[in-house]
């Protein structure tokens, strides 16, 4: 089973990844169940889903930074042709930061309040690159320029509390790309910012992709954000990928009722004055029902859905969905 977006070998190919979290009293939460997806070189993959759908766990398992209680129980994470899950901790450490960069949700806590912006960029450079002090300084200025920060020389001496959220997120992005990583993981990078700044940060990410050929795994719960810069989208529900494909195709023709519901609940309300919502709440990941995980909330549910989980199947060569009734879903 392969859902590669590109015919050439993808940068990151995750197959059959399963993550379990050991809860209290022997409860095992299945945070990810048989995830398969791939991110091509220079492409932006959007990971969309509600809270608790396993988006962040997916990103953390790629980084091998899962919390202590969580364990990868199966699957492979191929990155640049190597399986990250079997790498030694030492090899993994040298890969992080150098080959994979990360941006987090809240820029106000992403930088240490006690050091100037320049010091923090410098720290990232020192960890991997063999550069002299002057070289690192020049590189820091270059990085700030490339993320669109005006008068970078002056900004280097400023402290995080002297900068706005949007500026800080740019600095975080500068640090993330400091060592020319091939992959950037952005975990809700715009959620904590206000809407005008969100667009700027998204444009920045798109610019980095275009100029540096960097691949981006963008985690978000907002279809608008995904539509803005993603090439491909994977929709996650209850630890599974329920739909995946190029962003245009999914927008024009969603093939899973959950995708459709998400799209409608993130848009502006049509006619009525109530924001459309999805009734019910996601299933308990420690006690999943048989059949499709979305069945309880699905407007198109059939008896078959409750008995038998639908496998993800290809609708077009690069668009796939896990629903028995994909073909009947209205746009």
């Amino acid at each position, binding site marked *: 089973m392969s859902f590669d977006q590109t015919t050439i070998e993808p940068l990151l190919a995750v197959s059959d990844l399963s993550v379990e979290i050991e809860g209290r009293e022997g409860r095992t939460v299945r945070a990810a169940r048989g995830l398969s997806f791939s991110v091509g070189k220079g492409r932006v993959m959007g990971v969309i889903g509600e809270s608790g759908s396993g988006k962040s766990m997916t990103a953390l398992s790629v980084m091998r*930074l899962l919390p*202590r209680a969580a364990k990868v129980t199966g699957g492979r994470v191929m990155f640049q042709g190597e399986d990250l899950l079997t790498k030694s901790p030492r090899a993994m450490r040298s890969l*992080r930061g150098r080959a*994979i*960069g*990360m941006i*987090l949700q809240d820029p106000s806590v992403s*930088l*240490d309040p006690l050091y100037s912006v320049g010091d923090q960029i410098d720290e990232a450079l020192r960890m991997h690159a063999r550069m002299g002090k002057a070289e690192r300084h020049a590189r820091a200025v270059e990085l700030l320029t490339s993320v669109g920060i005006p008068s970078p020389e002056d900004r280097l001496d400023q402290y995080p509390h002297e900068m706005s959220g949007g500026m800080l997120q740019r600095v975080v992005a500068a640090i993330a790309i400091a060592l020319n990583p091939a992959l950037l993981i952005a975990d809700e990078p715009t959620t904590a910012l206000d809407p005008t700044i969100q667009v700027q940060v998204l444009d920045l990410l798109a610019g980095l992709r275009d100029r540096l050929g960097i691949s981006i795994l963008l985690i978000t719960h907002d279809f608008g954000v995904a539509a803005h810069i993603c090439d491909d989208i994977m929709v996650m529900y209850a630890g599974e990928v329920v739909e995946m494909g190029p962003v245009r195709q999914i927008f024009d023709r969603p093939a899973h009722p959950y995708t459709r519901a998400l799209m409608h609940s993130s848009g502006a309300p049509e006619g009525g004055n109530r924001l459309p919502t999805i009734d019910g709440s996601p299933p308990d990941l420690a006690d999943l029902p048989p059949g499709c995980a979305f069945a309880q909330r699905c407007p198109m549910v059939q008896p078959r859905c409750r008995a038998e989980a639908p496998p993800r199947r290809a609708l077009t060569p690069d668009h796939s969905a896990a629903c028995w009734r994909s073909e009947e879903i209205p746009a």
Partner: protein
Amino acid sequence: MTTTDAPPLTSPTLRRAKRRLTTLFGLPIIPVLLLAPMVICGLFGPWIWPHDPLGISFGIRLLPPPWLEGGNWSYILGTDQFGRDLFSRLIEGARIALIVSTVSVSVAAVIGTAVGMMAGYYGGVIDMILMRIVDVKMSIPPVLLTILIGAALGGGLATILISIILVFWADYARVIRGETLALKRTGYVQLAKVANVSDRRIFLRHLLPNLAPTCIVLMTLQFGASLVIEAAITFIGLGIQPPASAWGLLVADGRTYLSTAWWIPTFAGLAIALTALGANLLGDWLRDYFDPKLKKR
């Protein structure tokens, strides 16, 4: 964010005026005034004291302070039962107090902070083992611990130091562990890990400086507490031994003379109380000073 809150009760002008009254060169006046005598006497004792604190002269036993009948201006706080100058003995006591407080609080802070950071940062089994040790420590009454150590080592400076360190370190461990747990989850520690910054560097560069304010406030408060404990240990006879001088010893020796020569225990008691008060006030002030929410107004 729109602010529709009512204006704060203290206006900036009022606050500035208050600050001008309570601080001098950026330092709080009252705590510094209370602590300064002890620190100055502790550091420069031999140059300050008018008489040898150990010099016995039976001719002038139990001399009252000069403002009372029979007093002598050369002994401004009177003399004790052996005719030793009380003022000089108080200064000698300040030296002991300064040494004991500084050394014990610093060592306790280093041990406790290290334990707290390790427990908080690494979590899991390390956290469990270290925190259970803290729990065990917390369940032993400090007085009992001190008596135990006194019984093993005999009285003296070492007993005081070890007792105070053993009593105090766990407080740091608890507080610092909690703060580390919170810091560990902040973006910059996570991103430092992502950027392959070593644990050692995360500890020294990111955790420790961010923990420092908490640590300094706690040290100041414990500085006051250590004075009281030192006096208490000495009072029950397990600390500084005569003929040396310590504030606790002066209170202990003087209590039998309370009805006839009240000045012996009273001035020493005052010294303990006021210095400890100064340390506590300074601790409160530092806590506000380091609180980012109260700062920059």
